[in-house]
């Protein structure tokens, strides 16, 4: 019996390691080849680098305008996420605490809108806002992310706020606090677990999003990391070393984010999916 269990453990472990290798070999190969010269890659992409050179990284870093792209991605992701958190939580609070008839309708509309795919909106979206000259701005893009991210976040906050007893707020009300003060000082801090979940989901979504920024941001100076990777890779398809280095650079920030916040990311993804 004991032996049988041991054999089983060994088999499961071997299987896990094999699968892990299958999942990870693309990343490993990209990293290895990012240090090699073009000729080395063409002759054998599976060999280890003969000499360690960072030239590919310098080429990629400059041509991709990596710092600019990084800054654009960072500011767009952070500001959009903050906007979604601030305005969705307030809207959800309003929809839960004021039981007007119209609020029920608004909530239903928000839920129904979640099924609309971006593709069904993108064509009128581009023609209207392109025509009004509102495209090609980071700030407008952040506002668009607020619109697209609002319904899911409001829905998640709505469920959470419903569970908070009203009595907690009444005490503060007696002390003369305004509606806004009650919300920000008493209610919002209690929403922390769900806020963390929404932040994780929105950061992963906005950071990696390609289609919306590709339609909204036209100028090179505004490109985010996925956009600059796309254009860079298109130009450098034959210079594999630099192309691989570009991909590694593009992956580093989000991998760091994951390593620092592993637990929250895993929990956020699960909670976000279940709700």
């Amino acid at each position, binding site marked *: 019996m004991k032996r049988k269990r041991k054999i089983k453990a060994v088999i499961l472990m071997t299987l896990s390691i094999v699968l892990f290798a299958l999942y990870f070999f693309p990343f490993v190969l990209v990293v290895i080849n990012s240090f090699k010269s073009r000729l080395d890659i063409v002759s054998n992409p599976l060999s280890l680098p003969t000499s360690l050179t960072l030239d590919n990284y310098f080429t990629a870093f400059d041509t991709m305008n990596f710092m600019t792209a990084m800054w654009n991605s960072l500011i767009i992701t952070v500001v959009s996420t903050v906007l979604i958190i601030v305005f969705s939580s307030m809207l959800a609070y309003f929809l839960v605490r004021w039981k007007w008839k119209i609020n029920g309708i608004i909530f239903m509309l928000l839920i129904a809108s979640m099924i609309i*795919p971006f*593709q069904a909106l993108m064509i009128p979206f581009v*023609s209207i806002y392109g025509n009004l000259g509102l495209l090609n701005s980071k700030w407008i893009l952040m506002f668009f992310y607020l619109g697209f991210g609002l319904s899911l976040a409001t829905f998640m906050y709505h469920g959470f706020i419903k569970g908070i007893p009203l009595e907690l707020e009444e005490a503060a009300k007696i002390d003369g606090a305004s509606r806004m003060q009650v919300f920000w000082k008493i209610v919002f801090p209690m929403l922390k677990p769900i806020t963390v979940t929404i932040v994780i989901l929105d950061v992963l979504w906005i950071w990696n999003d390609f289609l919306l920024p590709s339609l909204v941001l036209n100028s090179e100076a505004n490109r985010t990391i996925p956009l600059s990777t796309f254009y860079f890779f298109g130009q450098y398809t034959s210079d594999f070393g630099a192309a691989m280095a570009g991909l590694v650079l593009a992956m580093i920030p989000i991998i760091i984010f994951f390593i620092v916040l592993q637990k929250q990311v895993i929990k956020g993804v699960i909670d976000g999916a279940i709700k």
Partner: protein
Amino acid sequence: MYNEKKLLDKLKVVFSFAFIPLFAFVVVIILPLILGVAMTFTTWTGFSGSLFEFKGLENYLTAFTDQGFWDSIKITVFYVLLTLVLTNVIAFGLALLVTSGIKGQNFFRMGFFTPNLIGGIILGFIWQFIFSRVLVSLGEAMDLAIFSASWLADPDKAFWTLVIVTVWQNSGYMMLIYIAGLMGINKSVLEAADLDGANAWQQMLKIKIPLMIPAFTISLFLTLQRSFLIYDVNLSLTSGGPFNSTELIAMHVYNDAFLYQNFGSGQAKAFILFIIVATIAITQVKIMKKMEVES
């Protein structure tokens, strides 16, 4: 519940809590939706100078009689079915593996999840390199006929590269949902089954899977939606080629509208896609809600 008595106070509440988010919602979602409907029935394209003349169902007819559209739908449906089954079977298997009590469970979970952190554009490029360089060179070195030419250059095999990359990307995400489902099963139920002499296979079929229906509902819903609407991996891995053999529906809509400037019929196709996805997703969730059981 709150309710201000004076109208002015009511307006104040609406303005401070709800005005900005609702404005964003109307401008970003509702307005394009309404104008999108208008686009499909008229000559209007949103660009200055385009007229607003009623065209009836012409755009929808153009969409339905476009052979390219049907080809793309056919490929997409086949792709969705394959990725749906493969992703979920593999994700469920992975979830069982990393909850079986092996050493380093957490490490393996993180590893399988990693592809989900990275944008589809980057993932597609990584695999483009693997399929067009690494596997070809492996094929030459080991004399494997299957890898002798790049899969991306072959219309049949290029389709499979999309399936492989999608399953690779999404299975780690769905694995997390299945792990949560497995952890949610009450241990005492399984202990009782153990005492009654149920073997591992019976426990799986009769207890674990029925109790995990909610996890399957979510995971199938997400894979369905993601597969139907995939664009970025498609763009960076195959860009629809060779010979349009891998042009999935989202890319077809994009190209029709923005490349060939067919805004009216492109928008009609986008709505057809929307209706297909919504119908399938809602039906799937409804059916599966009925299958749920209490432990």
